[in-house]
């Protein structure tokens, strides 16, 4: 057995002491030392599917874009149309390079008038900032990196709403809620709350395939809110969850992870993200490449299901007969479904659900059936 994880020197979350007190095991992730699990990956995964899980995502990068031109700037800098995003709504978007390759996938919130909050992957924080700075020349906007000031706490699972409603001291802010409540807050909508006198920006977003919320607030107020949500959640079955459970949850939900399903070598349409690109915008970085499209034989993202218990893993070859036709990007034995699932890029001839291929699992050929994504969908 060998499993080495360098632990220092790495950035620590403002919630680090909470994780230590909860007995977390840590892993290095994009330069941050973050909880990989507190008890059991499977138990944490199951809690999110059946009750709720509490995640520290403070490593995620937050960049504010403010100014009169903020919407127009983002329309050019990003693949989606953000200028028409209504106040207190969120949108999933992509940052493309000139070749149409994906620099990062992002959530953008219209957080206030002439103000957007762009949330990027920790691993791409500097690449995103560099690209945004490069693209801001003609616009009256100010960019600010808030990553070091803001903590991000996610509460995910069917009991998430009830738990936040029962978190004493977490109140809806009259000025930034527009009459919304936790109950009436729509998917990909946001509002303001208060905690300990400070502002909390809360959105009904997540990365687990369940109902849930993400809460952004100042570092100083994060530990007390974390503890309060844990206390309110305990009777509801909430447990703290690490990055291991987050990864299996997002995989079941068919959500891409940058560096696995997304990269600069992949055009959005190959990853099934064509809908994210507003091609009718007059101009945005990557437009001509996206319009030209990928080569006819460019690989496309599919779901795979295999028998047995040995999961296809990232980088394993996908075969049709003796021909290599693709490669696995993520895979695991699905905790919810009980069989191995994977995402893979395959030649477009082999993308139809029902197609049977093979995955080379460390020298053994394992039959794999192409299936539609997502693997798991919560009950409506």
């Amino acid at each position: 057995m060998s499993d080495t994880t360098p632990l220092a020197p790495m950035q620590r979350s403002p919630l680090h002491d909470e994780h230590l007190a909860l007995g977390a095991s840590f892993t290095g992730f994009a330069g941050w030392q973050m909880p990989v699990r507190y008890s059991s990956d499977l138990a944490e995964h199951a809690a999110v599917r059946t009750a709720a899980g509490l995640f520290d995502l403070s490593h995620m990068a937050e960049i504010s874009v403010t100014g009169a031109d903020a919407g127009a700037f983002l329309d050019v800098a990003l693949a989606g149309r953000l200028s028409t995003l209504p106040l207190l709504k969120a949108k999933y978007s992509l940052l493309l390079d000139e070749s149409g390759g994906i620099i990062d996938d992002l959530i953008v919130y219209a957080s206030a008038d002439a103000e957007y909050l762009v949330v990027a992957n920790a691993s791409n924080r500097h690449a995103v900032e560099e690209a945004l700075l490069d693209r801001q020349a003609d616009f009256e906007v100010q960019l600010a990196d808030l990553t070091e000031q803001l903590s991000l706490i996610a509460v995910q699972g069917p009991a998430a709403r009830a738990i936040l409603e029962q978190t004493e001291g977490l109140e809806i802010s009259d000025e930034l809620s527009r009459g919304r409540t936790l109950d009436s807050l729509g998917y990909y909508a946001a509002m303001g709350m208060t905690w300990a006198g400070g502002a909390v920006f809360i959105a009904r977003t997540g990365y687990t395939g369940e109902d849930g919320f993400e809460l952004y607030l100042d570092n100083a107020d994060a530990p007390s809110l974390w503890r309060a949500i844990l206390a309110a959640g305990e009777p509801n079955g909430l447990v703290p969850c690490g990055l291991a459970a987050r990864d299996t949850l997002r995989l079941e939900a068919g959500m891409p992870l940058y560096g696995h399903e997304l990269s600069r070598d992949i055009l959005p349409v190959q990853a099934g993200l064509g809908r994210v690109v507003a091609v009718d915008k007059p101009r945005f970085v990557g437009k001509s490449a996206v319009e030209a499209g990928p080569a006819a034989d460019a690989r496309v993202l599919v779901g795979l299901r295999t028998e047995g218990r040995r999961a296809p893993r990232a980088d394993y070859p996908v075969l049709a007969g003796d021909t290599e036709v693709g490669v696995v990007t993520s895979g695991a034995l699905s905790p919810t479904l009980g069989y191995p699932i994977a995402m893979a890029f395959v030649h477009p001839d082999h993308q139809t659900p029902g197609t049977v291929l093979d995955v080379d699992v460390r020298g053994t050929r394992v039959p794999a059936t192409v299936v539609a994504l997502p693997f798991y969908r919560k009950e409506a």
Partner: protein
Amino acid sequence: MSVPDELQYTAEHEWVRLDGDIATVGITQYAADALGDVVYVELPAVGAALTSGAIVGEVESTKSVGELYAPLDGEVVEANQGVVDAPESINSDPYGEGWLVKLRVSEPPTLLTADEYRTLISA
């Protein structure tokens, strides 16, 4: 972190319990914790002749795959079907029900002591 004094250890985070010429082999609690919940185990077949350091099986969690190395030369006399059927016993009882294989060895091994292994994992 449990590191029983009466066992011997390898740098690959395996433990060996010697009883006459029979060596029982498993992975340490440190390794089991690093892997997370074990969901699949592949063990060498009974009768197989193992060479120290060779990859002879694997221990897979939802998160990652760990290779199982032969900690010493020997012939497999028993493989733990219980752990194949219930891989989670590696997490719950790595030094007991979570044992993996028993080997017949020709000479007593010289592996790491419990103290040496504790030093290794605290480094």
